[in-house]
């Protein structure tokens, strides 16, 4: 037997369609987190390294809300609208927690440096420090183990297309991701705040001269990214119930960032495309190579290839170029 790497083409052929559905589901989650990276990058031209922690804090908030409402690892015996209401409550708390975290990150790790006009490297280091601090605050508080999983509904197969079962959560997550993307896209294109974001992304100095409050735009961008990360966190809790641990954000963060780069960082539609594509590639790779841990390796290799071949991403990378 080969000691290094083996390819299992048969398994990929046999599971191709279920892998596709599953990949798109994960892709939806990546896309929502990728939006946070993309928006901040578009406005500040900086990677928000702490965005992965913004996301995982939301996931914790959702799990805490649901457990304190009395839900646990067994499916509750409730009507669907009661479950939906509880989930809605949880996601509101998740979004709030993520948005507050994003706000704090901006205030602590970005704003003082911006006031001083620090070089880029300094921003990156302070953001990575912030990410580390949040990670280990969670670690000190909750320990190294994941939170006990919360299952809210029995994941039934809704469709059967040619032998491939499509489950409820896949439909929910992919639909929601696309909907959120449309909302954000229209928000950027049509609202006043969206226009401000585009103006700052194009040219911060001119935007300031034209009366755009740059500080407010920046903080709003962080908060919007946080809100979206909170939504992603809900889907993450549904899809990976045992994944809510202190390192969970970090691993998802790298993939979400890759998704953002793949689609074109700074590009809202690119984030969706990149997320879905990366979900597919990661899932195919995982089945082809035979272990779930390969997903990360495959995604990383994709990132390198994209950076080599087309660093501006598939759809090109500029938030400022978006037309209303």
């Amino acid at each position, binding site marked *: 037997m080969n000691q290094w790497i083996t390819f299992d083409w048969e398994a990929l052929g046999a599971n191709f369609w279920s892998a596709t559905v599953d990949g798109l589901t994960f892709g939806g989650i990546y896309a929502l987190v990728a939006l946070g990276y993309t928006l901040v990058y578009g406005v500040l031209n900086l990677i928000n390294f702490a965005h992965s922690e913004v996301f995982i804090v939301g996931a914790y908030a959702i799990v805490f809300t649901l457990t304190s409402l009395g839900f646990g690892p067994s499916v509750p015996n409730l009507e669907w609208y009661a479950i939906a209401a509880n989930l809605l409550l949880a996601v509101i708390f998740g979004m709030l927690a993520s948005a507050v975290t994003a706000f704090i990150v901006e205030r602590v790790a970005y704003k003082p440096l911006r006031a001083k006009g*620090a070089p880029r490297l300094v*921003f*990156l*280091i302070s953001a*990575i420090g912030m990410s580390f601090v949040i990670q280990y605050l969670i670690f000190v508080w909750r320990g190294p183990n994941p939170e006990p999983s919360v299952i809210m509904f029995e994941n039934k197969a809704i469709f059967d297309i040619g032998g491939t079962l499509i489950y409820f959560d896949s439909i929910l997550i992919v639909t929601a991701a696309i909907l959120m993307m449309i909302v954000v896209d229209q928000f950027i294109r049509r609202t006043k705040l969206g226009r401000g974001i585009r103006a700052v992304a194009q040219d911060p100095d001119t935007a300031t001269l034209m009366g755009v409050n740059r500080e407010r735009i920046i903080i709003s961008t962080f908060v919007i990214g946080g809100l979206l990360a909170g939504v992603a966190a809900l889907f993450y809790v549904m899809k990976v119930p045992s994944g809510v641990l202190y390192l969970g954000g970090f691993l998802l963060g790298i993939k979400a960032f890759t998704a953002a780069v793949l689609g074109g960082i700074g590009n809202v539609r690119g984030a969706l495309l990149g997320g879905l594509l990366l979900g597919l590639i990661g899932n195919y790779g995982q089945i082809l190579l035979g272990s779930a841990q390969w997903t990360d390796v495959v995604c990383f290799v994709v990132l*390198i290839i994209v*950076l080599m071949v087309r660093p501006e991403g598939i759809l090109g990378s500029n938030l400022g170029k978006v037309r209303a």
Partner: protein
Amino acid sequence: MSTGTPMGGASESQARADELVDETTKPSRLRGLSEWWNHLPRVAQWGFLLIAVAAAFALPLVNIPLITTEPGNNWPLATAEMARYALVAIGLNVVVGQAGLLDLGYVGFFAVGAYVAALWTSPDSTMVHIPYLLTLPLAAMVTVVFGVLLGIPTLRLRGDYLAIVTLGFGEIIRLLATIIPALKGQVGFQQVGRPPGENADGNPVFANSEGAPWYWLTLTVIIVVMIALGNLERSRVGRNWIALREDEDAAEIMGVPTFRYKLWAFGIGAALGGGAGAIAAGQIGFVNNQRFDVQMSIMFLVAVVLGGQGNKFGAIIGGALVAYIPLRFTAIAEYKYLIFGAVLVVLMIFRPQGLFGKRPHLLTFERRAHKRIANLADAPTSAPAAKEAGQ
């Protein structure tokens, strides 16, 4: 900012001259020291350095109360770890401090080095076995290859891409160690080789439980590396690194082949990380996938940032401190990641240059320039003007 140190006539003019050269990145306390140092004759500098080196070599033998890490941790072993961190910090300092590239996956190179040492010396490996000491240069060479392979696609891009790619790289190396069967995952490799030599009682000199010999080995490597890097920094390579760190666009316009010199820095940094990894593998005697996580990369980064980016002596101090603090203060060891993460943020906000900031200085003909400026400053009229100009 005036130094205001009461000094005799000749040295005062030299102090002024120093201000011309020395920008105000240093706190004034340390400035007196660096002035004094810069104006010592070469021979005296070497003399003091020899004393310092001798003192450094004696470190594991002198077990000073309060400073020692005992009873919690064996002191010679602690010094070995400090030296290892210092070596890693020197390597990472080339990448982060000299060339201004943020590398968040440095542990990846460290891991590659450790696995090279393990694969070529451990009886658990089916590879050809070679003497342990040969694995040090081999590890450096293999990691250079990894560094170049990673650097070619990414170094042309903006710095933050590099940061996240390296972050991914560190994680991927760890994952590959887990999922590639030949690298044995958590089982790992036992009995990694060691340098030859036995004590009178038949035990090997470089036993895994003996910190001092490993410390001396690491320190020797550090000294060689420091001399080599010092020369490199004063050469064309070093000047280009500084140009590129200070303003990449300007450097490019002035004809510095930025990509090539970034690759140099990345490769040299990788080699040092790999070497340190091979030493760590030898000292611990066991390599598996468990100790190469992102947290370590961040700790390495803290070492460089704390010591002062771009200052290789600072990197040594920073590396030693990052290793020393959790070993000495075992009560807070549990919170070390939290504390060092906060240190990063606080340093960036209040003191981005670290404990010992990089000192902009003339590189190639520093001494000669010093003398010439000192003479200029002696002329009564030009002195105040020159002083103004220096600030």
